[in-house]
């Protein structure tokens, strides 16, 4: 893989991690000493994507703003990698008027039509709309594709299976992405399904399925290149499962008492791992590491400052916008 691509992947992973760490900091800052989920500048559930950066970075590297992404309750990494407006996304997480949804949606409900991005808090329910976006692209004669993302837990939900079947039947330009972080909240994959790879399930619907191991961003990049190219050239849908890692709790405040795999987890963090690899290959040096980090911090802190400056919505506005 060429150096520029590798550096781009690294930069994107750093940007995502920097963002998630900043949201983590802001989320907890005013929930102390006693954690109250409804308190603070960012209230409500918060599902962060630290550890899953390789999936978003590797897949979205092949997309343009004309392609669609439907993400999940854990949407930030895909939103950032797909180029959702960082300022307005952050303002939405803070529930402010300049947010993507003017404060109505929150972190699980980010919609940026400029880049065809959306997400949903209902498991697997982001898959079906991606089919329709793909239909629209196809019927309008564009070569855009739709990427539908879920976790591995969602692969046991009806909408997942119906979507695979329909996309295959209609040869839609869709790439189904499954982020296997091994956990659906507290339920491990092994207690959810007997199927060890969702690539096998893809075969059940007559579409190609691929599984990328080791949370490898370059592995994801290579596999996604193929899947996106197939979709773009009219060869139909495929499924890509990535064995990734949930570095933090399911949501913030998750005590994770169920999680017996935590000991080894820090060592599997994809960010230092990839950094080491790139340093070893002479692609990254100390100065670049620092400048990449500084650039990411600037962008993220700027977005947070923007969000904080943006006013809270007028309560009366709650009654607007039910209909167009």
């Amino acid at each position, binding site marked *: 893989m060429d150096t520029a691509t590798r550096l781009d992947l690294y930069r994107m992973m750093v940007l995502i991690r920097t963002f998630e760490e900043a949201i983590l900091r802001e989320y907890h800052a005013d929930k102390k000493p006693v*954690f*109250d*989920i*409804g*308190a603070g500048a960012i*209230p*409500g*559930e918060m599902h962060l994507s630290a550890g899953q950066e390789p999936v978003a970075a590797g897949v979205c590297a092949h997309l343009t703003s004309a392609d669609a992404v439907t993400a999940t309750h854990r949407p930030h990494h895909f939103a950032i990698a797909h180029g959702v407006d960082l300022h307005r996304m952050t303002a939405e997480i803070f*529930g*402010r008027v300049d947010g993507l*949804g003017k*404060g*109505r*949606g*929150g972190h*699980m*409900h980010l919609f940026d039509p400029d880049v065809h991005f959306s997400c*949903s*808090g*209902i*498991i*697997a*329910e982001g898959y079906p709309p991606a089919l329709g976006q793909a239909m629209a692209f196809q019927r309008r004669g564009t070569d855009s594709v739709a990427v539908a993302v879920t976790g591995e*837990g*969602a692969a*046991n*939900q*009806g*909408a997942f299976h119906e979507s695979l079947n329909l996309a295959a039947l209609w040869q839609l330009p869709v790439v189904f992405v499954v982020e296997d972080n091994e956990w*659906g*909240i*507290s*339920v491990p994959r092994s*207690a*959810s*399904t007997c199927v060890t790879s969702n690539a096998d399930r893809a075969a059940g619907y007559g579409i190609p399925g691929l599984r990328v191991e080791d949370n490898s961003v370059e592995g994801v990049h290579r596999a996604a290149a193929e899947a996106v190219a197939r979709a773009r050239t009219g060869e139909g849908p495929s499924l890509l499962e990535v064995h990734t890692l949930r570095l933090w709790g399911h949501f913030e*405040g998750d005590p994770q*008492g*169920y999680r017996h795999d935590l000991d080894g987890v820090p060592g599997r963090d994809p960010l230092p791992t990839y950094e080491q690899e790139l340093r070893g290959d002479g692609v990254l040096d100390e100065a670049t590491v620092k400048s990449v980090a500084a650039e990411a911090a600037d962008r993220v802190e700027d977005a947070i400052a923007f969000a904080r400056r943006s006013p*809270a*919505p*007028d*309560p*009366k*506005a*709650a*009654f607007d916008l*039910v209909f167009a």
Partner: protein
Amino acid sequence: MSLTDASAPTTTRRLSTSKAMVEAVAAEMDRDQDVFVMGEDVGAYGGIFSSTTGLLDRFGPQRVVDTPISETAFIGAAIGAAVEGMRPIAELMFADFFGVCMDQIYNHMAKIHYESGGNVRVPMVLTTAVGGGYSDGAQHSQCLWGTFAHLPGMKVVVPSSPADAKGLMTSAIRDDNPVVYMFHKGIMGLPWMAKNPRSVGPVPEEDYEVPIGKAAIARPGTDVTIATLSLSVHHALDVADELADNDIDCEVVDLRSLVPLDTDTILESVGRTGRLLVVDEDYRSFGVSGEIIARVAERDPGMLSAPPMRVAVPDVPIPYARGLEDAVLPTADRIRSAVFGVMGR
């Protein structure tokens, strides 16, 4: 033993609503081998809202079963097990998720007894968390009990206090019908969410049933009937205490169940006060608040000395930002203004 009045418990032992619920489930599991629990994160996690804490350790994975995220399959499985005479308790983590599994619930669980000419029973409990107030957004904050109550064939219970949570759970498990048991996150007494002080309260240690279909007078009063349910009972009680200083004596009726609805208690109360305010955290139109007012109007509109009022979620999705969410929830402020309104002040 049967508790028909919310003030009946004489015990001094205090439990949170979630612990009271779990106590009832555990006692029934001890008593009846056919009772078992299944749902997402009900095992090691103990239920996202602590509705099953400790049950896995006590009863093991055969009777406390973590499921995949396959609501149609496991709720349907509960129906099948119930048809064969078991007494499953299936948990739908949030009522908001019913969209992915409603067919099993309303076309199967709720209709089998009727369609079979009464020959097949479905003695199961569907537990589910409801409600907002902590900025969880439009897909994780709804009550939706009006929807379940609208569809015939399932009982719907909506406890507001720890003692009722226990007694209604015991009744729900022993009932030979499907019972939807809807618990508000704000009354569970969770350590990680702002608590109403009454989410911890006295709970008798022995087994008892709170009959399904019997409302409670949570606070007697003479001027206005506030008919309400679940968390809103507490907001109504807070407002009632406060307004006593303004010489307004509110009667708070805790519905405790929507199906069957205790129309007699509502009518009897309105007959005494002549004024009705319904407070409901579900959507306003086509729901609980309209139904209660209709039942009064059907009996005798002349009972009302002032037009009835309702405080409910206006017909908008529940917004995320705190100020927006507060504007749509039935907060104490909105209840207070409505009481003044119905009193003509």
